[in-house]
């Protein structure tokens, strides 16, 4: 059974994480083992991506229970592209932790928790069962609770209480939605639900249930309901906020894409219009937040919100070009947001403050950091040939074709706000008079920038190597737009 390999992106981090718990006092050994584990996971997902491109969707029925009776993992190109990207980004974030993180954090179960987080994220991407999606969400969320509180500062504890409470309530909504869905269609296997919804038609009751799902995933993704996000993403240590910024909201966005392209796509005039309105408001709110603050971590957190609005604008338009663009943007944003948070965190470590007013002229002392930030800024604003460009072009083109001019305007104006907010950081913190003399400056520990440079190379690489990525993204978009492919791959043998 070759498809058993499908469980490894979730199983490998869990097993290694459990082993690492017993190696608590050996910080560096933990770091190396977890790095290797995530690199291997990335390798496996690369192989999976290749196999799917050749043979179509792969599925794994746990315990041999054929769908729709058992739990299963389904790997289509969309899911595996995201597993691959998230594994690579996690590997790079772990290497940053290895180089920079303080000794206390290293021995406080930091690495096992990151691995459990990765397992939850990968599981959410791969699962083909809605209840299993809930469980994987919880695995991810519990790890994120722990990561958010590691470090034990007052601010972290305060933000953690809010973050945990809001997530408990949103998980409650998830269970409510699952209960009603099960009561209505009598199954929780995604493909089976999709088939039954298509058979009976999307009745008003089902549309209402879909809106409960929309609320749940919007809370997790930060779509319109993002009020909890800036506080909790800007309080934990650098690596943790980089992981949060890169991975956590993306899982919510993924769930929205999956549910509203596979199951609830029959009433787009209600659901997709609602998503479009929410995406537009998210773009506005995120843009205003990004320029309103002087704390550079808050600015970075609001940039996450803008990106979420942008990707869901792609889902709201839902033409082939828009979905393709959203997938490109998805991949780009994981890399670029991790990079942004790592750079911002490094700046804060170097200058000892997170306020723009306390930093000036960093460029003179740390030129490499400055130019990395410059490239990140261009990439996030969508300047060619960097990775953000292709996604923005495709979504903008699709918006013109489908006549969604309001979304088009908001998407493009928000890009200008992204550029402006980051340019403000660049101008205030990197240019200007150098207030710290050469003798007084904190030395940038050797190697701290290496993970950032790896991500910079990745964003340039994705931008230039878009030709190599294109066939995979095309397959992913095709599967998302034609639910029949997914349903056949899961239920094909029985029907």
């Amino acid at each position, binding site marked *: 059974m070759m498809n058993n390999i499908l469980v490894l992106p979730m199983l490998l981090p869990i097993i290694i994480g459990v082993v690492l718990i017993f190696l608590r006092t050996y910080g560096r050994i933990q770091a190396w083992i977890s790095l290797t584990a995530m690199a291997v996971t990335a390798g496996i997902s690369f192989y999976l991506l290749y196999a799917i491109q050749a043979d179509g969707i792969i599925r794994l029925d746990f315990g041999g229970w054929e769908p729709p009776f058992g739990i299963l993992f389904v790997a289509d190109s969309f899911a595996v592209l995201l597993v691959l990207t998230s594994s690579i980004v996690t590997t790079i974030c772990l290497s940053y932790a290895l180089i920079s993180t303080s000794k206390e954090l290293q021995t406080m179960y930091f690495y096992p928790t990151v691995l459990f987080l990765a397992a939850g994220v990968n599981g959410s991407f791969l699962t083909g069962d809605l209840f299993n999606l809930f469980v994987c969400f919880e695995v991810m969320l519990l790890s994120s609770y722990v990561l958010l509180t590691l470090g034990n500062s007052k601010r972290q*504890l305060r933000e*953690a209480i809010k973050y945990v409470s809001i997530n*408990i309530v949103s998980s409650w909504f998830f269970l409510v939605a699952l209960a009603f869905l099960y009561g209505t269609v009598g199954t929780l296997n995604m493909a089976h639900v999709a088939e039954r919804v298509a058979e009976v038609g999307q009745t008003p009751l089902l549309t209402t249930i879909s809106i409960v799902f929309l609320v749940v995933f919007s809370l997790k993704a930060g779509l319109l309901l993002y009020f909890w996000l800036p506080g909790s993403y800007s309080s934990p240590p650098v690596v943790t906020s980089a992981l949060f910024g890169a991975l956590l909201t993306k899982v919510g966005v993924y769930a929205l894409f999956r549910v509203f392209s596979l199951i609830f796509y029959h009433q787009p005039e209600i659901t997709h219009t609602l998503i479009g309105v929410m995406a537009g408001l998210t773009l506005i709110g995120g843009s205003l937040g990004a320029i309103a603050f002087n704390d550079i971590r808050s600015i970075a957190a609001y940039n996450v919100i803008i990106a979420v609005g942008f990707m869901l604008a792609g889902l709201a338009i839902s033409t082939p070009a828009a979905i393709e663009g959203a997938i490109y943007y998805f991949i780009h944003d994981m890399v670029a947001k991790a990079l942004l948070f790592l750079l911002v965190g490094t700046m804060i470590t170097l200058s000892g403050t997170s306020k723009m007013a306390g930093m000036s002229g960093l460029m003179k002392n740390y030129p490499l950091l400055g130019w990395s930030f410059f490239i990140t800024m261009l990439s996030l604003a969508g300047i060619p040939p960097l990775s953000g460009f292709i996604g923005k072009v495709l979504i903008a083109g699709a918006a013109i074709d489908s006549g969604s001019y309001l979304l088009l305007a908001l998407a493009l104006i928000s890009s200008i706000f992204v550029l402006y907010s980051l340019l403000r950081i660049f101008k205030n913190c990197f240019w200007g008079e150098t207030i710290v003399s050469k003798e007084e400056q904190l030395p940038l520990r050797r190697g701290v920038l290496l993970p950032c440079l790896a991500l910079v190379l990745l964003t340039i690489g994705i931008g230039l190597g878009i030709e190599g990525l294109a066939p995979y993204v095309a397959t992913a978009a095709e599967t998302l737009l034609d639910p029949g492919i997914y349903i056949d791959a899961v239920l094909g043998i029985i029907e």
Partner: protein
Amino acid sequence: MESLIIILVGVLTTVAIYLVLSKNVVRVILGTAILSHAVHLLILSMGGLKLGTVPLLGEEAESYVDALPQALILTAIVISFAVTAFILVLAYRAYQELGTDNLGAMRGSDDE
């Protein structure tokens, strides 16, 4: 029977929301615990309640209870147990560090 349970779910949810909206952290945590009980009952009643039968699948069985909601609830109970344990410890640590259990005092200010 289902209608009775649904009314109970409604009552529990009302109580839970009242608790969650209060300012005391411990009350909020109790509220989330009751909230999860409410949804577990909801899932149970969604599977259909039948009296006096067992979740046994046999070819000749005349009636049987849907076993899936029970499996779902079991999983959900375990998860909510873990989360409640975590947030209780978190609330205790936060009380030690911040010296307050009032959510209104945890808003956070700009000078930090």
